[in-house]
C-alpha cells in the first residue's frame, strides 16, 4: 500500500507519568524541524494514576487525522496498556519500545508481531538525578525517527522553562542517554524538510472553535465545565475580556443557556460550549431562543453517549438531539466542523448565521476534533458581513416579529427608545403580544421557517471534492480520514467524489442534488451506532438507489484503510 509519507507514534504510560507532556514536546521538536503534525490524547476517566496515550502523527505535509496503524509504540510501563489495544493498531512492521523492568509484555503487544526493542528506561532515568523517564523516552524516539536531539532539548527547554537550569540540565542528560540507548532498528526515517515553520499554527480544535467564535464577534460566554468542551470555556475566559467581552461560569447548563439568551437579548453575540449531557439540559431553552428569535451559538463537543457514556472519547451521535431535540416545530441551524482546523471557520460562520438569522445555531464538534492538536498552515482570514437587523429609528407600533418576506425582522435591543417589546416563549403576534389564535401561531411558525428556507447559505454548506460515479457522503470529524482514503483510491486509479456537509440543518436538497449529478453510487459514512446521519439524509434528501450506509459507533476512530476497503471492494451485506 502506497502510504502517505507520515510516521505514527504512540506514547503510553500510567496517568501522571508525563506521557502527554512528552508527546507535546515531541510534536514541538518535530514541527521545529519543519514537519507538520497531529496529536490526540486518549485517557481513562481518572485524573491521575489511570492510563494515558499520546498519539502523534508526523508528516512533511499537513495531517489532520490518524492513519491506519502505528509505526512505533513506546510504553513507559505496561500498567493498563491493554486498555489501548483497540486504539493502537500495530503490525509486523511496527516497533514496540519497552522497559525490560516493566514486567511481562501484554499478550496483545506480543501478538501484533511487531519488532521489540527493550531499553532500561526507568534505570537510565534513575541514574540521572532530577530526570524523568519520559525524557529518556524522548531521546529514544528522536534517535529512532531521525530528529536531532538538539530539537528535542530545545522543545524541552521551551516546555519547562529556561529559568530552571538544573531541571533542564537533567532533562538534557536524560534525552542524550535515551538517544544513546535507542535500539538499532529499521524504522523508515522521515525526511526533515527544515522549512521555516513561521507562518504555521499549533492549535487544538477547541481553541480553534473559541478563536473562530471570537473572530465572529462573540462578546458573551456562559458555560458549565464538561469534558471534552471545557477548554473552549477556559480559552475564552482569558481571551474574551481582552476583546471587549466577558465570561461567566454558570451554576449548571440550564443557567448557561439562559444567561446567553439574556446577554444576546441585550445585544451581545453570545455562545456556550457543552457536551451531550449539557445539550440535553439546554434543549428547552434553545426552543425558547427559537420562539423568541434570539441569536445564539451552542457548541456541542460530542463524546460517546448516551448518558455519561465515555466522557473522554469521541462519537458523532448527538446529531439526532441537535436536529430533533427541541419540542414543537422549532427550525434552527446545525453546523459541523470538518476538521480540527475547520473548527475555526465553522465557529465563525456559526456566529454569522446566528446573528443574521436571529436563531440558535448548534455546532457539532467532537472530542476527536476538540482535543486534538494540529500543526497547520495559517488559515486564511474570513470576513462575513454579519449584522443583526435593527430598527432604524423609533417608531410608533414597532413590531419585533413582523412577518417579513425574508422572515427576518428588525430586532431592537434594550436602551433603544421606542423599540420596547417583550420577548416571549408564548405564541405571540407580530408585536410580541401573547396570543392563542391559530392565525398568529401559523404566521409566526411560517415566518421562522421562512428565515431558514429563503436564506442563501452559500458555498460553506459543504466541501465537495473530485468527480466520479461513486461519492462518499459524510459529515464532521469523519471527513479527514475519508479524504485520506479518497486520495489513496485516486492514486490507485479509482475516481471518488467527496461530499462533506458542514451545514446539517436546514437540509439543502437542491444543492445536494446538484452535487450528486453524475453520481451513480453513494456510500454514507458516519460514527454512530444507529446511522443517525444516514436516516437524516434519507428523510430529507433524494439519494441514488444504490446508496449504502457505513455507521460504526465510537470511540474508535474510523480509519482511512477501512474506508478505502469499502470504496474498492464495496460494503459487505
Amino acid at each position, binding site marked *: 500500500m502506497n502510504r502517505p509519507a507520515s510516521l505514527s507514534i504512540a506514547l503510553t504510560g500510567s496517568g501522571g507519568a508525563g506521557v502527554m507532556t512528552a508527546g507535546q514536546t515531541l510534536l514541538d521538536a518535530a*514541527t*521545529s524541524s519543519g514537519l507538520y503534525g497531529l496529536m490526540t490524547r486518549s485517557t481513562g476517566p481518572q485524573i491521575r494514576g489511570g492510563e494515558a496515550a499520546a498519539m502523534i502523527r508526523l508528516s512533511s505535509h499537513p495531517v489532520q487525522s490518524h492513519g491506519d496503524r502505528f509505526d512505533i509504540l513506546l510504553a513507559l510501563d505496561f500498567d493498563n496498556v491493554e486498555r489501548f489495544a483497540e486504539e493502537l493498531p500495530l503490525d509486523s512492521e511496527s516497533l514496540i519500545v519497552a522497559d525490560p523492568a516493566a514486567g511481562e509484555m501484554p499478550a496483545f503487544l506480543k501478538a501484533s508481531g511487531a519488532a521489540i526493542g527493550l531499553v532500561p528506561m526507568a534505570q537510565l532515568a534513575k541514574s540521572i538525578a532530577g530526570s524523568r523517564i519520559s525524557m529518556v523516552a524522548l531521546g529514544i524516539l528522536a534517535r529512532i525517527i531521525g530528529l536531532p536531539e538538539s530539537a528535542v532539548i530545545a522543545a524541552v527547554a521551551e516546555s519547562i522553562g529556561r529559568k530552571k537550569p538544573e531541571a533542564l540540565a537533567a532533562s538534557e542528560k536524560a534525552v542524550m542517554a535515551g538517544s544513546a540507548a535507542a535500539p538499532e532498528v529499521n524504522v523508515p526515517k522521515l525526511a526533515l524538510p527544515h522549512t521555516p*515553520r513561521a*507562518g*504555521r*499554527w*499549533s492549535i487544538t480544535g477547541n*481553541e480553534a472553535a473559541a*478563536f473562530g467564535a*471570537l*473572530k465572529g464577534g462573540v462578546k*458573551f460566554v*456562559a458555560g458549565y465545565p464538561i469534558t471534552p468542551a471545557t477548554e473552549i470555556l477556559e480559552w475564552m475566559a482569558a*481571551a474574551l*475580556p*481582552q*476583546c*471587549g*467581552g*466577558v*465570561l*461567566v461560569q*454558570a*451554576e449548571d447548563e*440550564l*443557567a*448557561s443557556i*439562559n*444567561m*446567553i*439568551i*439574556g*446577554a*444576546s*437579548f*441585550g*445585544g*451581545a453575540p*453570545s455562545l456556550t460550549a457543552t457536551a451531550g449531557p449539557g445539550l440535553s439540559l439546554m434543549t428547552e*431553552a434553545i426552543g*425558547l431562543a427559537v420562539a*423568541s428569535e434570539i441569536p445564539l451559538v451552542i457548541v456541542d463537543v460530542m463524546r460517546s453517549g448516551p448518558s455519561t457514556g465515555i466522557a473522554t472519547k469521541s462519537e458523532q451521535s448527538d446529531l439526532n438531539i441537535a436536529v430533533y431535540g427541541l419540542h414543537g416545530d422549532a427550525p434552527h441551524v446545525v453546523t459541523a466542523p470538518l476538521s480540527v482546523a475547520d473548527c475555526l471557520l465553522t465557529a465563525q460562520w456559526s456566529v454569522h448565521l446566528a446573528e443574521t438569522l436571529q436563531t440558535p445555531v448548534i455546532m457539532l464538534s467532537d472530542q476527536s476534533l476538540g482535543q486534538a492538536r494540529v*500543526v497547520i498552515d*495559517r488559515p486564511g*482570514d474570513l470576513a462575513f458581513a454579519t449584522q443583526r437587523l435593527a430598527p432604524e429609528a423609533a417608531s410608533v407600533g414597532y413590531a419585533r416579529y413582523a412577518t417579513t418576506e425574508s422572515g427576518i425582522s428588525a430586532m431592537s435591543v*434594550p*436602551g*433603544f*427608545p*421606542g*423599540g*420596547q*417589546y*417583550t*420577548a*416571549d*416563549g*408564548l405564541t405571540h403576534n407580530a408585536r410580541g*403580544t*401573547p396570543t392563542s389564535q391559530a392565525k398568529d401561531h401559523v404566521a409566526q411558525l411560517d415566518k421562522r421557517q421562512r428565515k431558514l428556507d429563503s436564506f442563501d447559505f452559500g458555498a460553506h454548506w459543504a466541501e465537495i471534492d473530485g468527480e466520479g460515479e461513486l461519492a462518499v457522503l459524510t459529515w464532521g470529524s469523519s471527513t479527514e480520514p475519508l479524504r485520506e482514503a479518497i486520495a489513496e483510491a485516486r492514486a490507485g486509479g479509482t475516481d471518488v467524489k467527496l461530499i462533506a456537509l458542514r451545514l446539517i440543518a436546514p437540509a439543502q436538497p437542491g444543492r445536494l442534488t446538484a452535487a450528486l449529478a453524475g453520481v451513480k453510487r453513494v456510500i454514507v459514512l458516519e460514527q454512530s451506532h444507529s446511522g443517525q446521519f444516514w436516516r437524516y439524509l434519507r428523510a430529507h434528501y433524494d439519494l441514488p438507489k444504490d446508496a449504502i450506509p457505513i455507521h460504526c459507533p465510537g470511540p474508535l476512530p474510523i480509519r482511512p484503510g477501512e474506508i478505502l476497503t469499502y470504496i474498492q471492494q464495496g460494503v459487505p451485506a
Partner: protein
Amino acid sequence: MNMIPATAPAFKPADYKSSVKPVWCPGCGDHSVLLSFQRALAELALPPEQVAIVSGIGCSSRIPAYTNCYGFHGVHGRSLALASGLKVARPDLTVLVASGDGDGFSIGGNHLLHACRRNIDLTYIVMDNRIYGMTKGQPSPTTEPDWDTAISPGGTGLSPFHPLVIALASGANFIARGFAGNIGGCAKLIAEAVRTPGFSFVQILSPCVTFRPDQQRGWKDLVHPAAVPETDDPARAARRLMTDDGFNIGVLYRGKREPYQPAPKAYLAPSHLEAEFAL
C-alpha cells in the same frame, strides 16, 4: 446618588403601562404588584427603554408584557439566569426579575442560591401566593403542610420553604417583604431594592383569590410592619428571619457587599490573539 438631572422628564406610573390586558383573575394580588412596579419606576424616573423586566412561567411571570419596558418572558424557573446574563452584558440597564413561589423556589431554586451568591445588581421580586395558580392549585414550596389539594390529598406534610432565610444565607445583599394590598408600600420597597447595589430580593405576599381565597381575607389583617429597624448585620438578620412570623413587612436586611460585575479588560481585535497559535 439617584440625582435626577434638572432636564430629565418626569415620569408618571402610567408611562410604564402597556396596552396588553392582564390574564389575572379579578382581585388577584398581582394586579396590585403591577401598579407597584409602575409607581416604583416612576419614582426612580427611569426611562422605560432603560429597564428590562425578566420572568419565568406562572401567573406572576406574566408581568413583563403588561409594562412598557423591555421584557423577557422565558422558560419556567430560569429567569434569574437569563437576567444575570443580560445584566452582565448590559450593566447600563436596570434589570428587574419577576417570579412566583413555584417558579422561583421550586423549579428555579438552584438559581436563587447562585444569584444571591453572585450578587449581580438585580432586583428579584417574588409574588408569593403559596400555590401554583396557573396549573390550578397545587402546593408550592411555601404552601402549608396541611393544605389539601388533588395532587397532595390531606396536604404535603412538608415544612414550608423559608425563602428569605435561604437568600440571606446565600448572600443576597438586600432582603425585604411586602404585601400586595399595600401598593404604595410595595412601590417603595421595589424602588429601594433597585437603588441598593447588588442582588435585592423582595418577597411580596400576593393573594390568590381563586385557589387560596382564605388568603385575601386573612393576610390583610396579619401583615404588620417590622418591629425593629433594618439591619446590616447578617447574624442579627438571620435570627430575626428565622423567628419571624412570615408577615413582617419592610426592609429586613441591607448588606454592604460589592456587586459582581465582570468587565472587559481591553478592546483588542481578535486577530491580536493570533500570536499565541503562531509557531
